[in-house]
């Protein structure tokens, strides 16, 4: 029984971290109605950055976040202006292929510069924290804490600030938002850049827990997609809920079921959600079937 408890709790914690990684994706999905297929590579970039700062300056990834988050914001803004924006008024497959292209580009540039080796950061806290009868790595708990704080902060921002309301309006109906005077192109830019910054933050808290290598993005982006569709496009609470679900599913399945099949679970889960609840657990009705830029 205590194994089950340990598994479920660690699943929840890691799930929270996965959620942080996915919030950017779901916001971009909800506001711009596009999928950034390079999302995993943004994560990879953030992780390499966190690693580099840690190794070169002798700091730790959490402190590195101070530099990484704004850097990723800037990177996201550049990618948006150069690659996403020109594709927005064209058939949606343009953005799909362009971001796919960016994904492959980034993976291979990383391969050329950093080689295929796995890089890690040295452990920061050399201890496990006890919660009741269970033990967790301090980095895991810290990561989860950061996620919760971040999510609450985002929720507060979305609900109280003008920017937040503008974002919610654009998610609901971009055209109407524009007619209401909301500067939708600027909202797009801020959302994309902000989503990238969030991925950067996620990268920093994930660096102590995972190794970085050029294709690390692929593993996590698929998880992120599943989380986003589970939770519903554009929903932050949905991403959190979805993340926790996935974390628990992963934790349980890798212990009770052969690890090889573990990954297959999310894909099947994804397909089931697509068939039966395409709008996710908390998403807008009709989002998946009415379609994007159709």
């Amino acid at each position, binding site marked *: 029984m205590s194994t089950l408890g340990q598994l479920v709790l660690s699943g929840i914690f890691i799930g929270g971290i996965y959620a942080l990684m996915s919030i950017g994706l779901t916001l971009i999905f909800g506001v711009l109605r596009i999928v950034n297929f390079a999302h995993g590579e943004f994560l990879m970039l953030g992780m390499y950055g966190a690693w580099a700062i840690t190794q070169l300056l002798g700091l730790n990834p959490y402190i590195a976040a101070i530099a990484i988050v704004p850097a990723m914001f800037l990177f996201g803004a550049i990618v948006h202006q150069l690659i996403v924006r020109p*594709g927005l008024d064209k058939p949606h497959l343009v953005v799909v292929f362009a971001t796919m292209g960016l994904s492959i580009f980034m*993976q*291979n540039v990383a391969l050329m510069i950093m080689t295929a080796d796995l890089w890690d950061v040295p452990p920061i806290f050399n201890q496990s924290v006890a919660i009741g009868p269970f033990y967790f790595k301090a980095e895991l708990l810290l990561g989860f804490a950061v996620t919760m704080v971040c999510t609450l902060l985002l929720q507060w921002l979305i609900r109280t600030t003008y920017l937040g309301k503008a974002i919610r309006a654009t998610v609901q109906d971009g055209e109407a938002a524009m007619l209401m005077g909301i500067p939708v192109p600027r909202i797009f830019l801020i959302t994309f850049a902000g989503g990238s910054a969030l991925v950067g933050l996620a990268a920093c808290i994930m660096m102590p827990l995972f190794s970085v290598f050029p294709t690390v993005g692929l593993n996590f982006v698929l998880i992120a997609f599943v989380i986003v569709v589970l939770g519903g496009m554009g929903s932050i609470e949905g991403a959190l809920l979805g993340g926790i679900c996935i974390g628990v599913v992963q934790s349980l399945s890798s212990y009770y079921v052969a690890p090889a099949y573990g990954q297959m679970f999310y894909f099947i889960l994804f397909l089931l959600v697509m068939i039966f609840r395409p709008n996710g657990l908390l998403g807008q009705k009709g989002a998946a079937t009415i*379609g994007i830029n159709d």
Partner: protein
Amino acid sequence: MSVGVTHQSSGRRALPFFPRRGTPVSVIEILLLVVCVALTVVGLPQSLQDVAVLTFLWAGLALAWNIAGGYAGLISFGHAAFFGVGAYTSTILFVQAGVTPWIGIWCGAVVAGVFGALLALICARLRGPFLILSTLAAAEVVRIGALNWASLTGGPEGLSIPPVAAFTSMVFASKAAYVVMMLLFLLGVYAVTKFLEGSRYGYYLFSVRDDADAASAAGVNPLVVRTVAMALSAGLTGIGGSLFAQYFLYLDPTFVISPELSFQFALLAAVGGLGTAIGPVLGSFLITPMSELLRSYLGSQAAGLHLVIYSALLIVVMLYFPGGIAGALARLASRRDKP
């Protein structure tokens, strides 16, 4: 983004220069055919034969992908699953049951076609990125299944075909024979594509792609049209997979059912020109040789450099030439035709 548009030709030309939807043949197509046949018959130096084999094969596969992605509007990043299913079916039948691949590839096509129809039904109501992600997920399920069902597929160790040359086992001693085989595959898929594009069913495909509601109001059943398109696309992809197995003589799920391979089919079709017959061919003819040559000259020195180049190329082409090479050339050609 439409290319090959039939426009009013006030002066009667014997043959259009550039391919157009509806006209069976054009100058460019004849030229390309002549060049390909000549290269195949005259014979290429050993080193280039591999390149030719792959160029023709990927061209055929890009064309097959295009039936779903370009004509039906069902952008799939999971077609490697059909490739793998076709390849494994014919190989398992041959290696374990002694069935000659000449029959096995058709079995593979049918199985792949069934998978395709299933995928279309699963994704029936999905659009845009949701459809794409679902195809990705479905392909991954197939890959992981193949990787783990060792008793059937040989698992991570893969399956080999004994390199014993014999016509009945579709294993050839000379590379030149493979070049011919792949060229025939390409011509076959090209013929299917051209036939489709000028047929009533082809129009149904385009209508469902462009506006499914309007198509429905015109009496077209979008679900049936999409399912048949996906099944056809999958079946042809499966044949390509089987032919690849006969050439490469080794199957391994990590390569054969990979997202990278799926993406390659889509990339070649998109860069070449979606929704046209000549587009995917041009895409492969341009990119495959470049890729193979880069890979052999640079080797492991700059692992990934060739991918860096094409992904950059892809980004530029998609943003500035969404009609691909074929689209750009068609625009040039139509400007030439104007008085």
